[in-house]
């Protein structure tokens, strides 16, 4: 059974008067399996964040269904099992790292020694232990991203949903986040992340999906989709993800214009 499943998921944003304004997502059918790293790729405005927000129950589908572990995404019992790192680390900037994690830990129902231990452990993992008493407003972008990841790790989640996890980070910071993602997978955590940085997705992902103008235009295991076959289905060469991505989107554009 897929751990996340969407069926014909469509989201149309409406204006003040309830008239359709933007079709952000159209008929998304997606299955994400337990323990895999799934990369949701696509250019800016392709509907990646909308898809993630629908899976988290932050917004509601116009039509179609989404289920996480077989339950609707707003199910309260699910929420301690899913970690979400938004595109930017939207945290309370007047708190310091320790207070922030204690706040989220208390929302999880943790207390006492268990809470303290988990906060310490997570701050060590993300390398913010030494600046734990510094308010978040004084953090650099890289430190804020790590803090965003820390609140995800605090949950010890079964599913991690990461929206552009390395955006705005220097190569070292991005590398550290990729290592953490890989470590999560090794522990059996399912990771769904969105990105438009293809070099990031290729070494990490087991499977990818490409969203373009709200539609899923390609999906599959990286090993399968990057193989270029001839007419009798014999493997000739292997594309890079970047080549595949550009070819797929260009084909899409050509067919779109020919219509």
């Amino acid at each position, binding site marked *: 059974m897929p751990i996340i499943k969407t069926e014909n998921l469509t989201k149309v944003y409406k204006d003040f008067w309830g008239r359709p304004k933007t079709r952000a997502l159209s008929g998304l059918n997606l299955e994400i399996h337990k323990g895999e790293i799934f990369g949701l790729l696509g250019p800016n405005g392709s509907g990646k964040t909308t898809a993630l927000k629908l899976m*988290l*129950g*932050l*917004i*509601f589908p116009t039509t179609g269904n989404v289920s996480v572990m077989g339950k609707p995404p707003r199910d*309260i*019992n699910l*929420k*301690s099992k*899913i*970690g*979400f790192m*938004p595109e*930017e680390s*939207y*945290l*309370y900037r*007047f*708190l310091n790292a320790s207070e922030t994690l204690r*706040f*989220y830990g*208390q*929302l*999880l*129902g943790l*207390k006492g020694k268990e809470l303290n231990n988990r906060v310490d452990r997570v701050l060590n993992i993300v390398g913010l232990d030494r600046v734990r008493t510094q308010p978040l407003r004084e953090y650099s972008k890289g430190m804020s991203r790590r803090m*965003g990841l820390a*609140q995800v790790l605090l*949950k010890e989640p079964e599913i991690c949903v990461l929206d552009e996890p390395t955006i705005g980070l220097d190569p070292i910071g991005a590398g550290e986040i990729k290592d953490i993602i890989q470590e999560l997978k090794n522990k059996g955590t399912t990771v769904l992340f969105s990105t438009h940085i293809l070099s990031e997705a290729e070494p990490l992902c087991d499977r990818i999906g490409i969203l373009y103008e709200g539609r899923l235009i390609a999906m599959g295991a990286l090993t399968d989709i990057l193989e270029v076959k001839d007419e009798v289905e014999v493997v000739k060469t292997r594309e890079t993800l970047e080549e595949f991505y550009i070819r797929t989107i260009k084909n899409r554009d050509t067919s779109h214009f020919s219509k």
Partner: protein
Amino acid sequence: MIQRIFTLSLITIKESINKKVIYLSIFFAFIIILVSRIFTSITPGAEIAFMTDIGLVTISFLGGVVALFLASDFIPDEIRKRTIYTVLTYPVRRFEFILGKFLGISGVVLLSHSLMSLIFLAVLSLSGGAVKCDLMIALALIYGTLLIFSSIVIMGSTFLSPLINIVFSLFFYLLGHLVTYIRHLSERMEDVFTKILLIFFSYIVPDLERFEVKDKLVIDSALPIGITGDCFLYAGVYIVCVMMLAYVAFNEREV
């Protein structure tokens, strides 16, 4: 559930402590109450009554300002800064979020109300006025109106922009002081539709007149027995209804 609501109210209090509106209100309360002492000469023989009148009006008005400016922006601010994304992906029910915000704001309003009341009572004592039980009841009732007002503002903030919410909440607050007038007006109406509409409206808006004891205090008349219990029971029931409406509106809101 209680831990989550408590945690959310605590973060609301921590965030509010940084807001200038609280300190400005307390500062202005201090100035107005102090200045009222100087102007007691315009009411010879009724200096304490004059100070009581000015003090209670000031505390009520500035408490309302604190409640209005804090409560009208808290939920929109969480949505604007998107801190709500992370909070709502934790095991937090939306009614817990609303309730946490309300309790946090009630705590901050209580804090500012207490400080303003202390200033008022101190100045009154120094001017020779007695700190009577009825005066304490009057201050408690003002807090009751502030709680009702905060709940209305929070409800508005779940579906209105801060500016429209301020107008909407002030409209309710002002009409809340005119409930008797609205009911009298409905009795005089001949048109059945308008009559029903006015009666309906008089029950929708909070009856803040029942909390109004300032005039009795000023003329040194005793307050009715059990007024505090009656008023706080009314406030409790009204706030529960308003919070339920806030939950209904917020539960369907996309963030």
